């Protein structure tokens, strides 16, 4: 490893490479913050450009977009309750309530610090022990993946707040929505209702935009208007404490940040999982371990740190199977494989031996990228916060116009626009009747992995469910799932007990 460091540093530290990382981060943050535009789309659009670049510059550009985009989703989530990316759906749970309390600056800063630290630690782990992690990740068969999904689903109990049954119902509905379309194993039609467009299933973008952005638009429409007067979207505290993360707050959340980093790293290293799962699991774990679980969902700084650290740590984790085994974990890493191959670099163990200087130059790019990420995001923060000073009467209509374009661009389908509107009304009704929206998204995201791993596991196990309990990693996840569910009841019961005793006295 050390023999490659000097040539790698010489290879990386050029103006071209630094501009590539910075440009990638900038584009990623903008793309991530706009609902409807997503990171795989941006990476795919920039891909042809990288063919004419040096491999280090090309990879640095795309990794910059990946990192920036994963963070960028939290900006619109915190400021207007509309996650720009699925990974930011967990950040919204506490980020938006913080913004409603005038603490948008603090929430955005927590999101930056969490993202950068999560990425940094994940990158260091990638550089030092990638091969060992990849070996463990290879032990994950369908049994383990199914149990991991069950564990991830158990966080619904945590993110549902006091509405456990409503959260479960929303999660089940999310699972059901994803079953619509062609069955992934046999390609048989399921619930297509004779509509050709539904053969491809319910697309994710219209669902995400509908239940978050359009429902928020309708919620805003319900509020009293004062014609002709400038109404701010949200209050913005002038108090310094509400706009910065103090050293004391950072220290208090350090354990959450470290825990979420390792959750994100671990989930990222598993092919087929993703940053949204990592964000929700990190959030659930943080709430379970917190001394103040009652603050989650009501503007907890710990919640923002957990979700953001978890989802950005995935970026480093996802590169582990890609570089060490040549296995892409998601759409973005699959595109990155393409870049490697175009430049004659074949991912796998040999890559570190044959092209060690290039690999370690990319690693240096990852670390430098984190520092640049901190600067670019901090500079952008002042600009993003200005969004809140735009009049409500213009901001939300503008958001709807952008969302409509975003919903259309996914598949260039007008049907998706109609779906977005329908899910918007549905999301609004869910909010009105206190059904949490996050479990719906969680169920939708997890369904493909749940179904394929379950069917594969049952075929492998000859229809026996026993291996789910006899294989150690699988059993561990199932036990953790049980612990999550039981633990989520415990603080609520205790609080109710306190409330009852307080009420009676």
């Amino acid at each position: 490893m050390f023999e490659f460091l000097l040539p790698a540093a010489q290879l990386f530290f050029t103006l071209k490479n630094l501009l590539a990382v910075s440009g990638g981060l900038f584009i990623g943050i903008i793309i991530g913050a706009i609902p409807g535009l997503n990171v795989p789309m941006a990476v795919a659009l920039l891909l042809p450009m990288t063919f004419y670049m040096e491999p280090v510059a090309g990879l640095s550009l795309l990794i910059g977009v990946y990192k920036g985009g994963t963070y960028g989703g939290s900006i619109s989530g915190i400021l207007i309750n509309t996650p720009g990316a699925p990974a930011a759906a967990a950040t919204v749970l506490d980020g938006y309530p913080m913004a409603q309390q005038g603490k948008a600056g603090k929430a955005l800063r927590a999101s930056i610090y969490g993202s950068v630290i999560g990425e940094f630690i994940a990158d260091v782990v990638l550089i030092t022990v990638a091969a060992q992690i990849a070996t463990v990740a290879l032990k994950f068969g369908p049994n383990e993946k199914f149990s991991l999904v069950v564990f991830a689903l158990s966080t619904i109990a945590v993110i549902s707040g006091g509405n456990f049954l409503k959260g479960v119902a929303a999660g089940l509905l999310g699972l059901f929505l994803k079953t619509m379309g062609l069955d992934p194993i046999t390609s048989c039609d399921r619930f297509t209702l004779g509509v050709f467009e539904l053969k491809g299933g319910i697309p994710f973008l219209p669902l995400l935009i509908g239940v978050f952005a359009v429902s928020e638009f309708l919620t805003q429409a319900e509020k009293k208007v004062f014609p002709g007067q400038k109404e701010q979207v949200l209050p913005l505290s002038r108090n310094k404490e509400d706009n910065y993360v103090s050293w004391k707050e950072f220290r208090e959340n350090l354990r959450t940040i470290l825990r979420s980093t390792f959750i994100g790293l671990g989930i990222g290293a598993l092919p087929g999982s993703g940053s949204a799962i990592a964000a929700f699991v990190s959030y659930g774990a943080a709430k379970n371990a917190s001394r103040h679980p009652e603050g989650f969902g009501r503007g907890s700084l710990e919640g923002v740190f957990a979700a953001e650290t978890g989802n950005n740590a995935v970026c480093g984790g996802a590169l582990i199977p890609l570089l060490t085994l040549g296995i892409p974990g998601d759409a973005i890493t699959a595109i990155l494989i393409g870049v490697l191959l175009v430049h004659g670099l074949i991912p796998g163990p040999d890559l570190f031996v044959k092209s060690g200087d290039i690999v370690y130059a990319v690693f240096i790019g990852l670390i430098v990228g984190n520092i640049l990420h901190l600067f670019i995001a901090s500079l952008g923060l002042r600009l993003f916060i200005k969004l809140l000073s735009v009049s409500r009467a213009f901001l939300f209509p503008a958001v709807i116009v952008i969302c409509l374009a975003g919903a259309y661009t996914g598949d260039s389908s007008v049907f998706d626009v109609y779906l977005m509107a329908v899910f918007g009304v549905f999301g609004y009704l869910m909010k009105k009747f206190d059904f949490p929206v996050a479990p719906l998204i969680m169920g939708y995201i997890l369904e493909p992995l749940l179904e394929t791993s379950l069917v594969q596991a049952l075929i492998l196990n000859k229809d026996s469910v026993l291996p789910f309990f006899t294989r150690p990693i699988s059993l561990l996840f199932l036990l953790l799932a049980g612990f999550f569910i039981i633990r989520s009841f415990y603080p609520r019961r205790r609080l109710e007990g306190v409330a009852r005793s307080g009420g009676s006295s």
Partner: protein
Amino acid sequence: MNRPRVRSLMEAGVVLLIGATILFLIPSQVEKPLGVESRTPPSFLPRVISVCLLLTGGGMLLRALSRPSLSPPVPPAKEGLARILLSVGLLALYAFLFPRLGFVVSSFLAMGGFAYLFGARSRAKILLSMVLVPLGAWLFFEVLFTIPLPRGVLF
């Protein structure tokens, strides 16, 4: 019967209805694979989901009967309800016009309508937003990222 209890019963009823509808639709809406016998056919997961929804709805029903929702419902004010209905109507009209008039023209009209509904009254500002927002979005999506948006008769 008090209103929180009625609301809780209604919520449980909706969950039960969704579960029952999925179960009812499975025979007609889930295709059977030809010549393949499997313990996990395409209907397996939807069936599990519908049963779980029925159990959850049952749980909500029992809870509603034993302990009504603690928070009483807050119905929207008449004025608020009218604005929501108008917003939904405008949104539906926008979605309808979107492929017919094209992105720029339909967004131009929608932006004006929504801004007025949300309380904007300055004609100059409304007009400026009607021009700048659709045009900005069009430049961003179609010109910068070469993602085609629908075009209508005018643009």
